[in-house]
């Protein structure tokens, strides 16, 4: 088993460096320079000043040289300093992670908490009104543009009803609140973003669960359980769900990189300082060190998530285990 994990993990290292190499060259293919955003066509910034800036950022060197120096720093866990504000890239990423992680974990809990039961319900009541209704509901969430749903919800809950704050993650008087007040304040700010993020992703999980469940419900052992005279409740929860949920669980592994990813549109609308905006702003400003930092973290998490999914399959399905050991 450990041998298997080790082999898999070692195999991922060249893949990782391949990803960084391709990313580095691709981002340099995009036209423009980090110095453009605020200095191009600014009559107060002369041509000579811009040339000076490009030299200071090391942009006058060839791309492969720039990659080599990036790599040299990276293997010593130094992500470099941002072109935007000259702060360490690791610091810029770390300060965004708690908010992003908090929203993503809570919306993921909500997605699984609602999506799984909804999928089971739809499978059990297949082609009946409940199934039809849930299908329409989850696909409405899936197809409606997130920003539009968000704006409608903000307008209704925050302005018409006045129940929730429009945007941000804390109130302006946050520092003066009691501990309980602070928690409540953050919770009130998080309600809309978390619910709307979850609404858009319900379709995936619930449909996956539904089809997995339908596949199981037709199998012989379910018929046997029913023939034994078990109650329908016991058949569904003790036998069917338990088996149907296994493939769904491996999705968790694949959603690991998504935990630190954020959506730009979404974070912009709710004024949340998360990873999505950091990435978008960095791309727009051609802040190469930050872009590379985020891409590397994303690559590591994606590879790690794949490994985790492999292992979960491995643990969940004896057939895979046998085949792997045969290959070894």
């Amino acid at each position, binding site marked *: 088993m450990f041998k298997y994990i080790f082999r898999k993990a070692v195999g991922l290292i060249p893949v990782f460096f391949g990803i960084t190499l391709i990313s580095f060259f691709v981002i340099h293919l995009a036209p423009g320079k980090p110095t453009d*955003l605020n200095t191009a066509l600014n009559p107060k*910034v002369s*041509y000579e000043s811009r040339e000076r800036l490009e030299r200071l950022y090391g942009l006058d060197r060839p791309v492969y040289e720039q990659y080599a120096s990036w790599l040299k720093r990276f293997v010593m866990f130094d992500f470099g300093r941002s072109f935007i504000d000259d702060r360490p890239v690791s610091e810029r990423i770390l300060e965004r992670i708690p908010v992003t992680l908090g929203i993503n974990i809570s919306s993921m809990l909500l997605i699984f908490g609602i999506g799984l039961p909804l999928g089971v319900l739809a499978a059990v009541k297949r082609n009946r009104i409940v199934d039809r209704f849930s299908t329409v509901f989850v696909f409405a969430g899936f197809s409606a543009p997130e920003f539009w749903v968000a704006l409608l919800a903000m307008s209704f809950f925050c302005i018409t009803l006045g129940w929730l704050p429009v945007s941000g993650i804390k109130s302006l008087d946050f520092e003066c609140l009691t501990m309980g007040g602070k928690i409540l304040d953050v919770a009130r700010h998080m309600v809309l973003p978390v619910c709307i993020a979850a609404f858009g992703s319900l379709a995936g999980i619930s449909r996956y669960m539904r089809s997995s469940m339908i596949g199981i419900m037709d199998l012989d052992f379910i018929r046997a359980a029913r023939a034994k005279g078990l109650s329908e409740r016991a058949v569904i929860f003790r036998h069917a769900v338990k088996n149907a949920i296994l493939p769904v669980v491996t999705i968790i592994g694949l959603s690991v990189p998504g935990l630190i990813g954020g959506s730009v549109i979404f974070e912009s609308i709710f004024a949340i300082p998360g990873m999505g905006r950091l990435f978008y702003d960095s791309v727009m400003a051609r802040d190469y060190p930050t872009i590379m930092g985020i891409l590397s973290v994303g690559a590591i998490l994606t590879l790690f998530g794949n490994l985790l999914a492999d292992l979960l399959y491995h643990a969940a399905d004896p057939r895979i285990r046998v085949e792997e050991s045969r290959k070894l």
Partner: protein
Amino acid sequence: MCVVGRWSLVVSKIPLAMLAVFFLCLSSALAETPEYGDAIVVASIGDARSLVPILASDSASSDICGLVFNGLVKYDKNIDIVGDLAKDWEITDGGRRIIFHLKKGVRWHDGAPFTSRDVRFTYNKLVDPKVKTPYGSDFGRIESLDTPDDHTVVVNYKEPFSPALSSWGMWIMPEHLLKDKDLNSAPFGRRPVGTGPYKFKSWKTGEKIELASNPDYFDGAPYIGRYIYRIIPDDATIFLELQTGGVDSSVLTPLQFTRQTDTPSFRSRYNKFRYPGFGYTYMGYNLSDGRFRDIRVRRAIDHAVNKEEIVRTVFFSLGRVITGPFIFDSWAYNKSVAPAPYDPSRAKELLKDAGWYDADGDGWIEKDGVEFEFTILINQGNNERLRSAEMIQNYLKAVGMRVKIRTLEWSALINDFINKRKFDAVLMGWFLPRDPDCYDIWHSSRTREGQFNFIGYGNGEVDKLLEEGRRTFDQEERALIYKKIHSLINADSPCLFLYSPDALPIVSKRFRGVEASPIGIGYNFTKWYVPKEEQKYK
């Protein structure tokens, strides 16, 4: 006492009924003595980058630096230069030397005194090749800078350069805090210390920046206690926040200004302001393109496009048609130059003179069998420009020109098309500094790759006047020069001057003392206040 005496003199001459009204007004005016306290919440689309003043090149960083720091000079409400940290100044040696006399008793937020050494330090950093500042060029013209005593700064220039005085609006940095630091990465950029009306308090990246009033400010402590700068990247959200009162002040789009804020709830809670903006939008031609080199073609386009209608439709008339490259309300703008009237038939005549007419009757004009077809490039994310380009497309279709529009991301547009001069026409804007010197945009020597005269304009007379404008210090003389430049450039039509959109700020009604002026509403921000009973934040 003197004031009371004058009132009574006036009072004795007006009828009783009016007198009563007069007293009512007077008493309410007297009751409104400015009061301290409350906070203002301002929304910004982007976060600040660095609060080291000489590195601040984005609008958010500049907004904050403007409240935390001071320059030696600043612009007053009528866009005239007045002293800020400098009490006054002398210009001698035919403009080669400026002697600043600094105000005494000014202190940094940490209590250290402000002296001429801070000015010298700021200058040294501006010209230090290792500092990533984009503002070095104006200061590179300085031959030497001396500080004979703590409150005098003598600046010697290599040659007379009249925009130099306004360049000293550059914010001054404290030497004692930054002396041996690497400015580019100094923590100072996240925790600035200045001399300005507000002290830096906190910065939560991507969320908000908070400032607190400086009770010892040399120009009088500001009334509003806290300044909260919220970063809200989406316009629609800012607008929703205005409705819930989560934001006190913002800038509106023309659509929001005319329609969406025209509701009883907005009218009762907000004051809207309007003043001419500092930018203008134009369609620049690539003058190395043979078709556009013919002035008849350029004049024809000027007549074919109904600029008034663009301002009316795209900006709901919240802007004005311009005829030259200067700030509309400034002393350099030549108001005697009239815009070319909208006259499609005149346009067609001019085109025919230039050899362009519809020979085969298909509705498009040709010359030697080649149709007049060109592409207007615009940058992504600017709806007003896109709509203006679409209207231009339509107007030019009416005179037989086939126009395409292509939208490009900003960096791609600049690097691959504008800098390389690979374009037929571009619809762009210039955001102008307050000083009218526009040498870099119009001088024929500034046409290399990456320089600002990318349309390739060159007129010997304009070149000479631009050089003269930089050497002349007397404002009236300079006004004559720039007005001449204005009319010469307009006569050459090197580009299609379109419009200058108005700035449209909105401020909560609880703030008093806010008024629009040629330079905007922010110039007297330290004098804004909120009456005690209306104060919202503690």
